[in-house]
């Protein structure tokens, strides 16, 4: 009996632990067995290649990580030509491809191209990156746009359609409902919060883009609050993330209403964190004689 079986929209997962888009690569499978993951989410791709933001792109604060990668990626064509075949080859767990666009048409073009490809279980629609001008967050802040976008994409695929939401909005529940109404089969949240750090000695921004993305332990309470708010507002399942380092952290998110969780920044503090979390959850549920699904959303 797999006490950790999870369902995310149209997918049945062997493990409720996934990886956060942009933070992971198959390089880590040298260190642990990929079967601990229920899902592999690719780095976000865009229609054209993006070189990303100038350095410095990273800074560790007292309680998390700032980044301004800027969606560096080789573009759709190179992804399909080079990266996807390699991932298909290596992966034994379902692949979700994350993508973003500067217009609804761009999103549609990418989805249509990926629909022709085998070996992927679905999509994560990134409308929430704080580190680029046109793609990403501009899309994710307006419920009407999210509805229109999701609706277009949902008509074009039978695969899992995850919409990834930004925490930097007044009412995440309204945006989640727009995605649900548009036909998203699940939601992912949260992308990074706005963050900034300055070298007090020189007055220089620590990152080339002053306002950038903030992840890691400092954002966990926020991610948990927004997971809870969203779970109260929609029926589709949530892939939750934001500062999850331990299996205890993961449990908090399940209680708040997450169907599955993803690990990002924690990997940079312990490359085995995803495996460790999976193992801890398994032992805990075993000891309690419960299945994970029994506790989802039962916070009191």
């Amino acid at each position, binding site marked *: 009996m797999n006490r950790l079986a999870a369902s995310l929209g149209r997918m049945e997962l062997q493990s409720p632990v996934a990886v956060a888009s942009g*933070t992971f690569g198959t390089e880590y499978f040298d260190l642990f067995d990929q079967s601990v993951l229920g899902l592999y989410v690719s780095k976000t791709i865009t229609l054209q290649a993006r070189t990303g933001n100038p350095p410095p792109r990273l800074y560790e604060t007292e309680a998390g*990580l700032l*980044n301004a990668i800027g969606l*560096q990626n080789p573009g759709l064509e190179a992804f399909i030509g080079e990266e996807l075949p390699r991932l298909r080859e290596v992966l034994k767990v379902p692949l979700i491809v994350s993508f973003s666009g500067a217009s609804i048409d761009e999103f549609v073009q990418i989805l249509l191209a990926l629909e022709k490809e085998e070996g992927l279980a679905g999509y994560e629609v990134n409308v929430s990156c704080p580190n680029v001008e046109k793609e990403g967050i501009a899309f994710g802040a307006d419920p009407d746009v999210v509805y229109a976008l999701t609706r277009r994409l949902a008509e074009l695929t039978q695969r899992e359609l995850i919409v990834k939401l930004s925490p930097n909005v007044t009412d995440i529940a309204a945006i989640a409902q727009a995605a649900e109404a548009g036909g998203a089969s699940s939601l992912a949240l949260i992308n990074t919060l706005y963050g900034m750090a300055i070298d007090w000695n020189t007055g220089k921004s620590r990152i080339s883009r002053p306002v950038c993305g903030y992840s890691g332990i400092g954002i966990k309470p926020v991610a948990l609050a927004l997971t809870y708010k969203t779970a109260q507002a929609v029926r589709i399942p949530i892939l939750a993330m934001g500062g999850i380092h331990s299996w205890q952290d993961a449990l908090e998110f399940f209680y708040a209403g997450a169907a599955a969780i993803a690990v990002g920044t924690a990997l940079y503090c312990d*490359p085995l964190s995803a495996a460790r979390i999976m193992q801890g959850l398994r032992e805990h549920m075993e000891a309690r004689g419960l299945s994970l699904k029994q506790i989802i959303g039962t916070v009191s």
Partner: protein
Amino acid sequence: MIRYLTLPVHRSESIGGNYCLLAVRDAGLAALCRPGMFFELKSGAAGQDRRLFKPVSIYKVQSDEIAFLIKVLGPGTQALQVLEPGAPLKLLGPLGNAFQLVKDSRVLLVSGGVGYPPLAYLRDKLDASNEFTFLHGGNCRDDVFPCDDVWTVDGSSGRQGLVTEGAVQLIRDKGINVVYSCGPLPMLKALAQIVGPILHYVSLEAYMACGVGVCHGCAVPVGEGYQRVCKEGPVFDASLIRWGEL
């Protein structure tokens, strides 16, 4: 092949004002090391488990011992400094590419400050067919380590001035045909100017998160676009670096 291990610190020494030396022993790991490579290191102490690893070059490999020479700057390196022999050190690596090893060449090695360790390791592994000179510079005598010619900004050790002045002389006088360098950015920029068209391998630093090439955080402007210090680097052909953007 990247490995992730927690090893007891074998040696731990305070050096000069602000440096420390840490060494671990592991024959398998030692066999994987090459000059130019680095490890992501982290103290295994409680309270560090939600902090990042810090990139540190391999300084010395002697039989099964791997040593690191670390300048204490902020929280990550402070946590490393306080490790006593026997305390747990987490290592992810070895990471990055390595220096191209030349033969039958007139080689110049130039390091500044905390750029010393990878060049010291490289010197030990340079083929005997090469003729070489190792210049090292620092702000003051605290930053000085064994080499052929030492420069300090304040003149407290070796010759007074910038190590790049020494490089100018040697390149002019000795017909140098390969340069290896590592150090602070202003030094590297000046050196790249001075070295000009001569073959020049430079080891760059960048703030890192993953260390294994997945996060694209350690990008530097090389060729068109950016390359990752942790994966395509840390050693780059200096002529491909867009120095103006650094």
